[in-house]
């Protein structure tokens, strides 16, 4: 059969955000593909230089609609380390609680999208329903489902009191039972396994070459997790295990993410139990002393990197954000060969597309 090239995007039922791939196919076989990015570039790094530090928190929260909290947390940590400001331990724990809730809902969202791409709409509906449990908790404690506005330089803007705990525990318990049911399905459903197992596996070597981090790397056997390797408080005091799988295919990524949800649920409960007393924020000065800093943290999709340089004023001199998705997206053209047309959605879903993150 002759070679034809099909466009996936910028608008396609597969994609939630604009991204363009041209994929060469021959019959049902995929020969190769090329990627084009930049449809949702908003110039956030440049915009940050025109705003003061407080305004920039709200700007970086809008880098991504799914992992909004980790962006503000990392930014605040960068500013605080330049200010040499000691954040109260309670605030650190509350930040970590939000990060873990965010990881839970991001992974559930991803599981749903993968299931939808292979035609298992039931799992899509159920995971997105369960995801609301995590979002409800976030809304209850911060007031926002997606954009929380939870962080400020020097701490957090919300506090937990006794009345919150029953609801949070109840939702976490519900989530836990839903996740074990979900894992049971993912591990045993033959059609799902047939569609995801062995699809476009990525070797450990390729992962290292492309600098991919996060669940995608861990599913290929690369044991990397910023929460453990470069712990910012309170992760140095929390106990958790890093889930890895050796296979590197879509199925391994599914299992890694599902197990990570469990780990995050454990972490949430640990955080709630160990939650120290005290104040939740400290007053921060308006101007930040001259200097530069790099902060690396673990976003739901992998290593998030913030570089911040200050020139002593109340505005950042330079802010560089490197999101985990960009590296993962570069894997796509590598994976788009020796697969079938029906595997394209699985491969696309496998890297956990977040085009807004990648384009910024």
């Amino acid at each position, binding site marked *: 059969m002759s070679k*034809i090239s*099909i*466009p996936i995007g910028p608008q*396609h*039922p*597969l994609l939630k955000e604009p991204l363009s791939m041209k994929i060469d196919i021959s*019959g*049902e076989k995929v020969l190769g593909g090329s990627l084009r990015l930049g449809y949702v570039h908003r110039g956030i790094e440049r915009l940050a230089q025109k705003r003061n530090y407080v305004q920039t928190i709200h700007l970086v929260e809008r880098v991504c609609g799914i992992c909004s909290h980790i962006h503000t947390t990392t930014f605040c940590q960068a500013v605080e380390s330049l200010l040499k400001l000691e954040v109260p331990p309670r605030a650190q724990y509350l930040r970590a609680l939000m990060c873990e809730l965010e990881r839970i809902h991001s992974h559930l969202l991803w599981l749903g999208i993968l*299931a*939808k*791409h*292979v*035609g*298992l*709409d*039931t799992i899509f*509906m*159920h995971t997105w*329903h369960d995801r609301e449990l995590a979002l409800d908790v976030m809304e209850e404690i911060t007031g926002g489902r997606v954009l929380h506005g939870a962080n400020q330089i020097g701490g957090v803007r919300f506090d937990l009191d006794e009345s919150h705990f029953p609801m949070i525990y109840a939702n976490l318990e519900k989530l836990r039972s839903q996740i074990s049911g979900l894992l049971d399905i993912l591990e045993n*459903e033959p*059609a*799902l396994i*047939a*569609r995801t197992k062995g699809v476009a596996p990525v070797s450990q070597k390729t992962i290292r070459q492309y600098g991919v981090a996060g669940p995608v790397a861990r599913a290929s056997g690369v044991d990397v997790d910023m929460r453990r390797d470069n712990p910012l408080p309170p992760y140095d005091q929390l106990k958790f295990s890093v889930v890895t799988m050796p296979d590197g295919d879509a199925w391994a990524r599914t299992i890694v993410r599902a197990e990570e949800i469990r780990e995050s649920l454990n972490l949430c409960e640990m955080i709630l139990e160990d939650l120290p007393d005290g104040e939740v924020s400290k007053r921060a000065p308006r101007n930040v002393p001259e200097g530069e800093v790099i902060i690396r943290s673990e976003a739901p999709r992998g290593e998030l990197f913030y570089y911040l340089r200050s020139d002593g004023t109340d505005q950042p001199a330079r802010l560089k954000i490197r999101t985990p998705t960009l590296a993962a997206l570069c894997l796509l053209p590598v994976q788009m060969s020796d697969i*079938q*047309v*029906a*595997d*394209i*959605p699985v491969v696309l879903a496998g890297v956990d597309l977040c085009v807004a993150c990648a384009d910024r």
Partner: protein
Amino acid sequence: MFEALFYLLIFPGGFFLVLVGLGFEWLDRKLLALFQRRVGPPWYQPLADLIKLFSKEDLLPKGGNELVATLLPLISLCAVLVAGLYVPIAGFTPYSFEGDLIVILFLMSVPTLAYYLAGIISIGIYSILGGGRSLLQYFSYEVPFLIALSGPAVLARSWSIEGILTAQFTLGSFVLFQPLGFILALVGLIGKLKRDPLDIPSAKSEVVGGSLTEFSGGKLGFWHLAMNIQAVVGIFLIINLFLGWTKLANPFVAILVFFLEFLVIVGMLSSASAIFARLRIDQLAGLGWRILVPLSLAQILFVILMGV
């Protein structure tokens, strides 16, 4: 003359089939929604969708053949409507003759071929892919489907559906002798209807809308209607071939039993689409030829040995 027109336009043809087709779509969507923890559409939603489609602007991309694009959905609709005329409903059939099973099976295949042509004549890449896939899928499910449906005919020693139905009144329901054939027929029907999990030719995440990507307005409405009626005729056919129990003298009881059987089969189809992930086309071909065909051959061998 009037009798024939009534059969053709009102019952069991035309109007009745359209009505049951829309009812089937609603039931299917509602059940699927319940499995997926959604609310689902109200009962008039399929009709509202159809009216909306017919009131919309009918566009065809430049280079498409208007005549063929209009004829293909109409031909499929006509084929399934004619097929519906010959399938007994609750034991009632206006026209029955030896060999009508074969005619119906042929008429039921027409929409698939029209679907393939609709993809191939189109200028869109997704349509061409979808059309090619529909033909590949046809070759995978059609053989086990036909063998499974010929099981009852062999057992009843008749190729008329009414003959098969009456044979079950003395022999007993054929689903008891051929449970495997019944399941294979259902799988074949899912493949024929391009329903989830065998919606490979129209998989949204892979080929957008399959062959129907470039269709809009009334033409798309006719396609949807044809597929719903095809589903209804297929279900009626399977009920007649496998689920005939006993001669019911009271027509109301007969209609009630027929309706309940219809509900059961719709429930089975809906749960299949809720439970299973979509297969890849090579996996479907493997399933069809490595598993379904040997199973259907084993079933028919059993039937032949039983008949001896």
